[in-house]
């Protein structure tokens, strides 16, 4: 009846245009991206070595590193203090399972990346979330962008990321940050907006400046929600583990890739199980950090 208004030429030109932009960025901003790369690695590489029990730098004595049992011990201790006995036991069991299955080193690589990505996400996402809570306009603008970040398939931005950073951990961290930051921003925003209006009024009524209001009232009170955002952020980061491994970031994803490439379903599954165990462990610990406060407050 009507003809389809398809105009492939437009699509083609558009995609060429974008290719051009990407090339332009890749070629012209190399120093910038090198610097970013160096920055991320400066954080990530020592962390990874530390977790894997390697000396942080050549020539350092071995005892300046962290043996596997100490990593487990410290984590279990943290779990115990923040989340109670049950979670501590769960953590121990899962850790030992990881170790027995020979996934410990992979898990530590994954942990290092996840941790770094989360740190960067917090450093970027928290201010954006706060700003979004204060400004409805900012909120309206950021909403579709966050939607896009979450639904845009990561494959799409992996290629430019690899061109910019080369294979390795940095593009993995970047892709993870892009994918994992939206819930943190959203929940920070929500958390601050949800702070009891009367308490905010009280703080203003007693002469808080807006900065004092933020640091002394809104952030502390939004903490449970923000912690939930961080928790979500970590969970989403863990969902990127396989993709990270695809672009050279090592970790548990390697096992999955290897298993799949060889059609060894079981091996892939074990690798996947490793990721699941890490996720459950981290989830339970971070969740209870948020909750313990919340349950006290309400």
């Amino acid at each position, binding site marked *: 009846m009507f003809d389809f208004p398809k105009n492939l030429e437009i699509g083609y030109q558009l995609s060429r245009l974008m290719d051009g932009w990407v090339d332009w960025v890749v070629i012209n901003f190399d120093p910038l991206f090198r610097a970013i790369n160096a920055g991320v690695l400066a954080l990530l590489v020592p962390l990874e070595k530390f977790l894997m029990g390697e000396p942080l730098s050549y020539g350092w004595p071995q005892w300046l590193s962290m043996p596997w049992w100490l990593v487990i011990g410290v984590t279990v201790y943290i779990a115990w203090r923040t989340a109670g006995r049950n979670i501590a036991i769960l953590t121990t069991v899962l850790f030992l399972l990881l170790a027995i299955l020979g996934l410990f080193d992979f898990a530590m690589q994954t942990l290092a990346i996840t941790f770094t990505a989360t740190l960067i996400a917090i450093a970027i996402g928290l201010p954006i979330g706060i700003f979004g809570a204060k400004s409805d306009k900012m909120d309206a603008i950021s909403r579709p962008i966050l939607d896009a970040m979450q639904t845009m398939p990561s*494959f799409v931005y992996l290629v430019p990321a690899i*061109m910019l950073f080369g*294979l390795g951990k940095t593009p993995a961290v970047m892709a993870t940050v892009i994918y994992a930051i939206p819930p943190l921003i959203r929940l920070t925003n929500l958390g601050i907006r949800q702070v009891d209006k009367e308490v905010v009024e009280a703080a203003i009524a007693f002469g808080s400046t807006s900065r004092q209001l933020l640091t002394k009232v809104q952030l502390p009170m939004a903490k449970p929600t923000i912690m939930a955002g961080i928790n979500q952020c970590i969970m989403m980061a863990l969902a990127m583990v396989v993709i990270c491994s695809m672009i*050279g970031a090592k970790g548990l994803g390697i096992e999955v890739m290897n298993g799949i490439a*060889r059609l060894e379903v079981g091996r892939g599954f074990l690798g996947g199980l490793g990721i699941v165990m890490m996720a459950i462990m981290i989830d339970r610990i971070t969740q209870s950090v948020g909750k313990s406060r919340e349950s006290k407050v309400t």
Partner: protein
Amino acid sequence: EAAKPTIKFADQQFESQWINNAIAKFVIENGYGNPVETIETTTPIMQASLTKGDMHVNMEMWEQNIIEWHDESIAAGTLENLGATYEGGPQFFMVPQAFADEHGIKTIDDMKKPAVKKALADPEDKAKGLFMNCVIGWQCAEINRAKLVTYGLVPDHYNIISPGSSGAMEAALAGPQKKGQGVFGYYWAPTAIMGMYDWYVIEEPAYNKPCWDEVGKSRDDKTYIAKEACAYETLPINKGVWSGLKDLDSDIYTLLSKMNVGLQPINKTAAWAVDNEIAGEWEKAAVYYLKNNENIWTTWMPDANAKKVKDALAAK
């Protein structure tokens, strides 16, 4: 003739396979009247599907990379190898041509030069260079490692990094080329990336069987170091088909078993495709190939079918 079965081709997302699939599709659809479907997929999915008949044909199996599966499946009678699609895809180590010129790289030993290493430094471990391996889980990844160890590049001079997909591998090679920087990796031809940029293929000792057996031992046992290493054998790129294809449509089976497109014509077609920006319309490349290589493809089929193909070509 709606009754003719649909022939399903695997599309593993690389250029030479796209061209070959397009050629086969054009020939089958126009010459035989079977519908053809190409299924976009990844290697493991292809493996799981081809032996079940969810896919029928893989025009480029690269079975060395998945040799265990290949051999097991042939033995189990679920897969057939219908012989070469073209004579051989070379596999090699390479650096950008400009980089090779700048640093005077000729042989694999030149890669140990401190200046080269420094230019290729691994950002995570600045003391060493970085080598871009092939996809995780493919045999070539282990072979490359074995060779580099024997050449003395690993672990003293280089770290190895492995991408998880061919797309990532290409991006990792293309990025430095765009920036005019160095990169050291493994690749093969014919491929788009080889057409797009100038590469220098690093000289290695020539292929020979005893050497390759040594490499093979090291490939299978990480702790073993091969006594010698050498360049890849240039092996034919074979067609793999589902063992049920013969029963499904024996004419197509016969066609495919005869179909050999030839390395040079394919390389030419690939170059033409790049020059003409065909934007994913691989049929254009197939038509270009068929128009220019009539002497080759007419040998694949009876005259009656060839006539139909020619008619269709004439209409293009």
